[in-house]
């Protein structure tokens, strides 16, 4: 049997954290996938850019604070970590507001990157 080339898999995160579970359960998937030796990317656009916002404190909601875990993405083998420029600007966010280093990409770059994927997973 032929050895398969690594798959390009992109997580397309669009949901805000805390209001629904997608950001959190999406993160759990990303961390697992990191172990599979594929070519993993994660992009944060629309309200998902808020998932990377510094200073989240969920203690009064009584729920787990998981934003720090996003910092582990690199260590877990997620090679490409993007935020979309327009989503950031619309929400008044700059890289200084985020808990980790990511690449800011414009629509054209994201379009191209998405077009190269084998699998796109929305969260």
């Amino acid at each position, binding site marked *: 049997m032929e050895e398969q080339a690594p798959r390009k898999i992109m997580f397309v995160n669009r949901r805000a954290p*805390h*209001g*629904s*579970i997608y950001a959190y359960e999406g993160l759990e998937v990303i961390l697992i996938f990191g172990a599979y030796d594929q070519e993993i990317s994660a992009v944060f656009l629309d309200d998902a850019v808020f998932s990377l916002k510094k200073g989240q404190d969920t203690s009064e*909601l*009584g*729920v*787990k604070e998981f934003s720090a875990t996003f910092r582990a993405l690199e260590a877990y083998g997620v090679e490409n970590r993007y935020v979309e420029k327009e989503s950031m600007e619309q929400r008044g966010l700059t890289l200084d507001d985020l808990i980790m280093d990511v690449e800011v990409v414009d629509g054209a770059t994201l379009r191209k990157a998405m077009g190269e994927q084998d699998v796109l997973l929305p969260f």
Partner: protein
Amino acid sequence: MKFGILVQEGPYNHEASDSAYHFIQAALAKGHEITGVFFYNDGVTNTTKLMDIPADDRHISKRWSELGAKGVELIVCVAAAKRRGISPDVLIDNARIDGLGQLSELCIESDRLITFGD
């Protein structure tokens, strides 16, 4: 005052169930009466006792059951529950399955009816 509560979404997936719970706690702390919590739509899935939750997270159905033990009526819509597999066998203690008429009663008896949903 008498507050009735309608919960339309399931636990964990949406914040609605948490917001409803915190609102109720604050209302009770201020001396208000909760006439009842009615679970409808996916909200019925708040009331399964089969949840198996890590120790570092809130246990939503247990939390509801404890509220029920303190005397807050927890009413689960029968039609919505059947559709989603919430049967009497898996229902948490201190909740009951009943008809939509109970929501109507809540609307009539309560000074305020507030809905938490998606």
